[in-house]
């Protein structure tokens, strides 16, 4: 299989699926309102997947992002319930993410535990922590300050574009800002160059004087920060927080990065490709929901599509 074909296969499949949805759901799928809806629904995943791309660029994984998202959400909500102002809750949630990410980084880079095992351990710890902090309950209603919940409902009015009554959601704009920041970091800064070099040959990176240990800790710290940010966005969107609400983000984020990798020339994780992967998953979820496909069937389909894409990419690279 030629690299060009391998690269475009995922996009061709994506276009075919989107066209199918548009034919089956002509009134509700290919509309501006629905596209904005997808952009909003996918915003949290986009943030987690973009920050997951940072660790995957150096060949590592972070399995703890989903439970970190839950933990950050409940930490903020518990502080809100205790009367803390919005900025305090948000800052505390992000700080928990940064700290948890640093713990992951130290376990992997300093102690030397495989990322898979280290972050599986912290996944369990963060998840248990979220239950402890929240007392196992969902925090909702008056405990959540109105400005925090309003953030997810608001956006920039698009009346000027002829889209009366529609808004570009703050959530989507936040995701776009995170994606842009990660893109600059990975593609235009020495930091990203060093991450990719470490992923390609960690020993060569070390011999070239790159501080590989510090670099890995920083990458995991950013992944934790991104996960916490997504957790706060999620809590804002549903105006509540419970200790499991971020759980689905981890697998979808890894799936999005993998889907993206099938689209890049080198088969490496690239953040814009990851965004395309997020779009595939977002469109798929949205279309299948509208077709009233059972959510369990949707999970099976998502998993199968990711496996198929990655299998094609792997076969394509083998010669």
């Amino acid at each position, binding site marked *: 299989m030629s690299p060009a074909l391998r690269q475009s296969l995922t996009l061709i499949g994506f276009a075919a699926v989107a066209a199918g949805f548009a034919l089956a759901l002509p009134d509700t799928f290919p509309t501006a309102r629905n596209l904005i809806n997808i952009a909003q629904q996918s915003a949290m995943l986009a943030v987690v997947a973009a920050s997951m791309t940072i660790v995957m660029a150096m060949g590592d994984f972070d399995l703890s992002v989903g439970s970190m998202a839950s933990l950050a959400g409940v930490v903020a909500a518990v502080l809100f319930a205790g009367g803390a102002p919005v900025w305090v809750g948000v800052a505390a949630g992000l700080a928990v993410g940064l700290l948890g990410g640093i713990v992951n980084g130290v376990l992997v880079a300093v102690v030397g535990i495989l990322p898979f095992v280290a972050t599986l351990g912290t996944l369990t710890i963060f998840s248990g922590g979220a239950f402890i902090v929240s007392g196992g309950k969902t925090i909702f209603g008056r405990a959540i300050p109105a400005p925090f919940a309003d953030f997810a409902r608001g956006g920039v009015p698009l009346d000027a574009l002829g889209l009366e009554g529609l808004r570009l959601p703050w959530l989507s704009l936040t995701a776009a800002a995170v994606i842009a920041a990660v893109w600059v970091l990975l593609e235009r800064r*020495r930091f990203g*160059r060093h991450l*990719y*070099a470490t992923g*390609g040959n960690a020993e060569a990176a070390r*011999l*070239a*004087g*790159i501080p590989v240990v510090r670099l890995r800790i920083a990458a995991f710290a950013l992944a934790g920060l991104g996960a916490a940010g997504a957790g706060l966005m999620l809590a804002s969107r549903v105006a509540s927080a419970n200790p499991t609400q971020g759980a689905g983000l981890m697998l979808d984020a890894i799936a999005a990065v993998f889907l993206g990798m099938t689209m890049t020339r*080198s088969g490496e994780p690239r953040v814009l490709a990851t965004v395309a992967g997020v779009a595939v998953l977002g469109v798929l979820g949205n279309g299948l929901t509208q077709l009233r496909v059972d959510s369990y069937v949707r999970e099976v389909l998502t998993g199968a599509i990711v496996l198929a894409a990655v299998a094609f990419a792997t076969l394509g690279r083998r010669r």
Partner: protein
Amino acid sequence: MATPLVELRNICIAFGGIKAVDDVSVDLYPGEVVGLLGHNGAGKSTLIKCLSGAYRMDSGEIRIDGRPVEINNPRDARALNIECIYQTLALADNLDAAANLFLGRELVTRFGFVDEARMEAETRRIMQRLNPNFRKFAAPVKALSGGQRQSVAIARAVYFNARILIMDEPTAALGPQETRMVAELIQELKRQGLGIFLIDHDIHAVKELCDRAAVMKNGQLVGVVRCADVSEDDLLGMIILGKMPEHLAV
């Protein structure tokens, strides 16, 4: 005689109780090529990795221009203008030639962004000198031939104005024409006053390229000889028997 560029004094390094390098002293003068000879496991690469910062020695002293220096990691070595071409080449296979040449020392713009254009221009400039046939500037280095990869590794060592160059089997992966190219390069760098440590298995190449040869066996230094004073058989004897040739023995 002038001050040596590098003095390795009584270097010891052990791995799990095994003395990989045992009390070895070698020095290197500006404009000189010193060959390091010995079987696999004799300790040549280990010795030299103390100088390049890849390993930390257990005891001993390194002097540069007569002054003792601390080399704890590859960054320290680079700061002292020590460059190393490793046998493995130490290239990030997923990155292109320019990214590898500037690995860890990327050129950036005023705003801290990676300056791809300038790095590629510089890479083209130095490749024009080292390997004019080199064309694949945009491809990841894993797509390059052994010789092309080698020239990227050499370019990286030469570009940053090294004063001390370490070459670990620089011609092992090369064809005859490329080997000749490396030999010419070594002569040119010598004329520029660099000191070069050349680690090699090939006695013939060492005899031809080096001013002096240091022979190691089982982690110990057998001796250092002027290449003009010995035959290839003498060197072979030193490597295998671990003894100085009779006409030089004291």
